[in-house]
């Protein structure tokens, strides 16, 4: 233990002479805007995705507030439609998809591989600015009237409604390029930039998750791109492909849309699983159970994700045979997901668990994701889905996966790498409080919605029958608890930035390579080229981390 700390101190003194940390390396506005440093781009992404999350979150609070009473509470029906559409579009395209890969992944992936940067640093910066452009287009759409189609833009409604459908969908098209560029960059980086001595099975599991995600980003996103172009052309001039009035097939749009958007669900959840695979072994101080099982299940999820899109369309009138096939394939997704959950739990078994904030979030993830995954099987069953389709049960299910899964995992990762990113520790007690509030608030909000949905409350409705009011109110109270948890988090994270740079290089006792870099890392990440000398997750002779 002592010699590890000794060694880190030595590195610090040696590099202190000629290499500054990346945060202090030039602080003019141009030093940031023109940077090709993956760490700075990651931080810039982080600021924007968190801003998007704040905006999307406030919209969600407004939706819940409106649903406090059956009739009008704070907004009229048209506004309500725009608000839930915006909530969905912002959360999906501006927050969740870029959140883990582009913000956290950009920062830690090259560090984990022992690389100086991603393979194409300029493409990385381009990806960031394309994201900004796409975000501006969506902002423009809000200012010019908003969209009321829901984030899925289903035809024929989206080809006939007024509002800024064209600008929003072109914004999605542009954001797609940003996502593709990140994907291309990560695949090339993982193939070619691994440190000497690091084979495919010596990579941290986070990297496997990022790899699987990137494959989906590259393969699925172009289809969404062309779909959005077709939708805009159909709306503006009439191709005759989606609009039934001129001979089109609106269900074809659903096929096109879900061919991307179902894999996109895994673009969102795989990175979350990737973070959990790092946090759980670190805070259990025990080698990950079933490394290859977790690695291959990520790839398996990525591949299977392409052949299950039809389960979004069981009630669209597609043939019963196709429905049966898609239902069967959907159940297959449960296998690799289950493998992961069992491996994580097996890793914790007989480990020396320390309940720091990242681990608290990771445990919350395990509980919430398991509920989200299992209720997905309900919806994948044909007969049950006929009853539950387009009800709050679906809303609750995907919030358990997307928020209980991805967002909670994102928070785990944010707390795990925060000291690495900013060189500062946050208030651990407030973090635990915030995690508890979010966990309770989340379950109050969304567990209730399973009940609402199974009793027949349809999603996206502005009004509802009086009998649903108690449950809706309970759900809305939950959203306030959730909101409180997030505002406390915002407070202590911002407060930590004002403190001194007090984080050691490896505050948690992690074994992957990013913990060998200083906190915050120097601009070139490591002084010299690091060489991997032992497998990841080997916790022998690694201290449990520094307290406080």
């Amino acid at each position, binding site marked *: 233990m002592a010699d590890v700390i000794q060694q880190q101190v030595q590195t610090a003194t040696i590099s202190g002479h000629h290499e500054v940390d990346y945060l202090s390396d030039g602080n003019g506005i141009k030093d940031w805007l023109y940077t090709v440093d993956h760490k700075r781009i990651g931080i810039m992404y982080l600021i924007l995705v968190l801003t998007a999350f704040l905006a999307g979150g406030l919209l969600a609070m407004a939706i819940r507030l409106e649903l406090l009473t059956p009739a009008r509470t704070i907004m009229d029906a048209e506004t309500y439609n725009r608000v839930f559409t915006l909530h969905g579009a912002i959360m999906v395209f501006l927050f969740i998809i870029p959140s883990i890969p582009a913000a956290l992944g950009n920062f830690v992936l090259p560090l984990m591989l022992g690389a100086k940067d991603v393979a194409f640093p300029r493409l990385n910066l381009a990806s960031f600015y394309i994201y900004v452009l796409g975000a501006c287009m969506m902002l423009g759409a809000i200012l010019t009237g908003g969209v009321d189609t829901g984030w899925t833009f289903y035809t024929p409604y989206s080809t006939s409604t007024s509002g800024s459908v064209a600008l929003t969908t072109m914004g999605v098209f542009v954001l797609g390029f940003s996502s593709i560029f990140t994907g*291309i960059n990560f695949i*090339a980086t993982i193939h070619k930039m691994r440190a000497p001595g690091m084979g495919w099975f010596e990579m941290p599991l986070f990297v496997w998750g990022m790899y699987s995600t990137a494959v989906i980003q590259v393969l699925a996103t*172009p289809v969404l791109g*062309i779909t959005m172009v077709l939708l805009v052309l159909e709306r503006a001039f009439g191709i005759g492909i989606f609009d039934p009035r001129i001979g089109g*097939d609106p269900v*074809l749009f659903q096929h*096109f849309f879900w061919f991307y958007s179902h894999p996109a669900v895994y673009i969102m959840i795989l990175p979350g699983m990737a973070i959990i695979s790092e946090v759980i072994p670190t805070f259990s101080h025990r080698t990950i159970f079933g490394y290859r099982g977790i690695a291959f299940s990520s790839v398996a999820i990525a591949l299977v994700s392409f052949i299950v899109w039809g389960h979004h369309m069981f009630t669209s009138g597609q043939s019963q045979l196709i429905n049966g096939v898609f239902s069967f394939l959907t159940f297959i997704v449960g296998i690799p997901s289950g493998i992961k959950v069992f491996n994580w739990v097996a890793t914790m078994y007989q480990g020396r668990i320390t309940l720091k904030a990242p681990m608290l979030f990771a445990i919350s993830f395990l509980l919430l994701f398991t509920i989200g995954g299992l209720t997905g099987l309900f919806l994948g069953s044909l007969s049950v889905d006929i009853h539950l389709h387009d009800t709050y049960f679906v809303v609750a299910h995907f919030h358990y996966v997307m928020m209980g899964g991805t967002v909670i995992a994102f928070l785990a990762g944010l707390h795990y790498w925060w000291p690495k990113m900013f060189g500062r520790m946050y208030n651990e007690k407030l973090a635990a409080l915030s995690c508890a509030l979010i966990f309770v608030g989340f379950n109050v909000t969304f567990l209730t919605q399973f009940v609402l949905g199974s009793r027949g409350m349809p999603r996206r409705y502005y009004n509802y029958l009086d009998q649903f009011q108690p449950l809706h109110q309970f759900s809305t109270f939950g959203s306030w608890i959730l909101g409180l948890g997030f505002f406390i988090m915002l407070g202590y994270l911002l407060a930590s930035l004002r403190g001194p740079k007090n984080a050691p290089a490896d505050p948690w006792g992690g074994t992957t390579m990013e913990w060998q870099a200083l906190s915050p890392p120097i601009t070139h990440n490591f002084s010299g*080229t690091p060489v991997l*000398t032992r497998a990841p997750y080997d916790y022998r002779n690694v201290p449990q981390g520094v307290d406080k």
Partner: protein
Amino acid sequence: MSVVETIQHDHAEVHDPHQQHHFATAEQQQDASKIGMWLFLVTEVLLFGGLFVGYIVMQGRFPEAWKSAHHHLQRELGALNTVVLLVSSFTMVMAVQAAKLNRRKQLIGNLWVTIICAFIFLIVKYFEYSHKYHEGLLPFKAFYSYTGPQVPGEFHFFSFYFMMTGLHGFHILGGIAVMLWILKRAYAGEFTSQYYTPVDLIGLYWHLVDLIWIYLFPLLYLIS
């Protein structure tokens, strides 16, 4: 015990001027670039793939319209353009080979022929488009104004004809722009047998653009 050892950077080492600092070797950089290009091509295939699927579905809905509408296309011009693109693909291969063998003049010559072929393709396409324009055989419900004898649904065919060949045409234009830039660098003598990655990459791109046309030609011009 330490997880990593570090190799100190050897600053005396002679670096290829084209090698970016974050790569350890020029070979690593070249391999990474190639992977990046292949992935980009995969995204291109999927982008066009969406249009191909749309084409097939709509053809299934309007088989008669497809058969009747395709007679408006001039097969000879389509065939001519196919030959032009095949020739350009060949000269592109020769250009890459010339770069690999350090033959600058051959590289420049072959790039010029490729660029000229690309222009010929666009000129032929211009004549085809303007002919359609004058007859009112235009894409989309909003523009289609042909009044001659026809089967219902022919405008769908022209929507797809223009979207697919149009998107392909933009790729030809983009290819020309990049080839001109590479030509400029070739004149400046930037490429050697040690470093010719950009030539290699534009070659890959150009073959894909050619390949897409190989599919477009029978799908649009040779329906029976």
